[in-house]
């Protein structure tokens, strides 16, 4: 079954799982089919050719299309993408709240398609928290353990330990509605973690919190994940959140995985135009390849301008190429770029002071809009003013090839 599916897309991504899980407390392994799990050799979660189609009166909607994925034990793994990209559906299929139309979901090697959520050894933190409003914090957290018939003394001990971990000790008798949003969020986390699941699924758990609290909870979640060592699968549409917290992440778009990478690679080496636009702020340029020097493409541009794109594998002269360069890699200068640097001529259209940096919006001679972020160092005065003609320069290794331009993408020329 699984041999049929290639795994090339994940084989080259090193696992960043920092330690073997401590979650495998023998007392929770009451499910006989998971007792024999052979440690880190078997991935915690493996999706093989997962597809989900919803049939409605107006036709079939494909939410997830042939997703293959391996999530390692103890990993903090994020599914990132815009709303409607299929990330939540994917998470809900792992949790058992949706059944895939096609494909297999392996939890520690065991196919769980068709197994209802109450028989899956994973727990979910819901976006709305879904706390039981008629129960105290203690009863909410103890709910799963009671259902598993854990002895009362052990329930008390584990619930109290968990409330300590999420810093809610002393709130055990409160009702959920008597707590703040952040506290409710912690109850939801404790209620799921107390069961010591093989994996914790989090569906945009921080979306309802305000910015300050969200940032605090990001650090908090990372700490908790390190302490309990459980695999976290985290769904978010917030790229900062995903980059901050994840060991590895995927960016999804229209039901498919665009890229799987570590946060650094995702930012530094976006594999597609979509990822480049979605993660951070990107300048996307399109040009025609003039010559190829090995795998380096040299693009046709105007006088004193040159665009050098390394690692443009598989392209030939005359083809159209998409490339991206991050705004903070660009330097503005009045003189033409030195030898070996990339450069474009343009006019400053807007200067926005942002505190730690200044943002310059520049229109190139060819009509592309580019952004450049320059750090406001103590000795720097304003580099350029509105209306100045400048050169945008950057080092060739910061030109990232996004591949050959496909026709459909040409019209949505954009700086995200």
């Amino acid at each position, binding site marked *: 079954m699984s041999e049929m599916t290639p795994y090339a897309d994940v084989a080259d991504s090193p696992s960043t799982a920092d330690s073997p899980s401590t979650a495998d407390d023998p007392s929770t392994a009451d499910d006989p089919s998971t007792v024999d799990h052979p440690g880190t050799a078997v991935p915690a979660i493996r999706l093989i050719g997962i597809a989900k189609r919803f049939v409605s009166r107006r036709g079939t909607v494909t939410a997830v299309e042939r997703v293959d994925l391996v999530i390692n034990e103890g990993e903090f793994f994020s599914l990132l993408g815009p709303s409607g990209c299929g990330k939540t559906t994917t998470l809900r299929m792992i*949790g*058992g*709240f949706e059944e895939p139309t096609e494909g297999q979901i392996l939890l520690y090697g065991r196919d769980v398609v068709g197994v*209802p*959520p*109450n*028989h899956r050894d994973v*727990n*979910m933190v*819901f976006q*709305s928290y*879904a*706390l*039981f*409003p*008629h*129960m*105290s914090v203690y*009863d909410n957290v103890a*709910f*799963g353990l009671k*259902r*598993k018939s854990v002895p009362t003394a052990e329930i008390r001990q584990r619930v109290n330990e968990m409330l300590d971990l999420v810093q809610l000790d002393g709130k055990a008798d409160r009702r959920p509605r008597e707590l703040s949003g952040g506290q409710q969020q912690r109850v939801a986390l404790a*209620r*799921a973690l107390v*069961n010591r699941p093989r994996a914790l699924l989090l569906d945009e758990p921080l979306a309802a919190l305000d910015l300050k609290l969200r940032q605090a909870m990001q650090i908090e979640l990372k700490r908790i994940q390190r302490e309990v060592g459980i695999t976290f699968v985290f769904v978010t549409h917030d790229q900062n959140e995903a980059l901050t917290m994840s060991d590895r992440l995927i960016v999804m778009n229209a039901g498919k995985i665009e890229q799987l990478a570590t946060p650094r690679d995702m930012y530094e080496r976006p594999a597609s135009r979509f990822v480049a636009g979605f993660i951070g702020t990107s300048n996307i340029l399109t040009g025609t390849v003039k010559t190829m020097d090995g795998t380096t493409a040299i693009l046709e541009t105007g006088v004193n301008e040159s665009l050098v794109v390394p690692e443009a594998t598989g392209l030939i002269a005359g083809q159209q190429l998409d490339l991206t360069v991050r705004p903070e890699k660009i330097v503005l200068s009045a003189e033409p770029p030195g030898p070996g640097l990339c450069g474009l001529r343009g006019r400053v259209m807007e200067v926005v002071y942002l505190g730690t940096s200044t943002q310059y919006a520049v229109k190139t001679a060819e009509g592309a809009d580019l952004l450049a972020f320059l750090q406001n160092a103590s000795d720097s005065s304003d580099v350029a003013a509105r209306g100045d003609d400048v050169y945008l320069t950057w080092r060739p290794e910061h030109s990232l090839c996004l591949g050959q331009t496909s026709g459909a993408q040409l019209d949505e020329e954009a700086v995200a």
Partner: protein
Amino acid sequence: MISRIWRTRLAPYALILPGWLWLVIFFVVPTLSMLSVSTMTGNDLDGFKQTFHLSTYSDAWSEYHTQIVRSLVYGLIATVLCLVIAYPVAYWIAFRGGRYKSSLLFLLLLPFFVSFVIRTQSWEFMLDDHGMVLGTLRTFHLVGVMKTLHLVSSSGTILQTSTAVIGGLVYNFLPFTVLPIYVALERVEPSLLEASSDLYANKFHAFRKVVFPLSLPGIFAAVLLTFVPVASDYVNAQILGGTKNTMIGTAIETEYFTNLNYPVAAALSFILMAVLLIGVFLYARILGTEDALEMAAA
């Protein structure tokens, strides 16, 4: 200055004035006048005079306490039956109704477009000795069983038995039970069901620990909305019942319109009102609290 005082302090009272007037004219005044009638003596030919004759109350109680007790018993039985029938209906509409929810609710209320008396009258035809209910029971040879259970009379008829009266009451007041329960169930977030399933609860436990406790406020309201009108109903007992199953509503109606004995009728009304108020008050004190909710989930 004056206009500011007017706006901030007097306007709320002015706004509530129509409501107050309505309540005073159509509730307080009639109630007081009934209270005054209940202590009068006389007859309809010579007229009634206020004599503060309080023993009308004790006389009315000793004459009609069987009917009062019977009304409460019928009310309890009918309310329990309504709950048993209404809960699954409300549950189904709330969780399985999907886009047909409003159509299903409309169907539930559809009988209300026909007059209460006519609906009850049609039950008389159905329960008649040659009607479809007894006919069906005879076809399946169930009349004997019904006799053993005392659900039909010893001669095998349904009309003029308590079965007929309670059946009519359950039929007529069922929507009052369904709607509050539906509203409570509708407010239960589907994610709570997913959460309980995620926390290893099967369907039964999810219902027992989450859905049912959260629907208790609806059941609480449904019991009040059903029991009070059922216990004071006079149409069903009159049309479907016989002399052995009269309820207090029927007795009050007879005293008013047949015997023209207004003081006794008024006294009976106040006795019924007092009994229901005490019952409702005790019920609310015992069950209408958060502790009761929490205990239901334990």
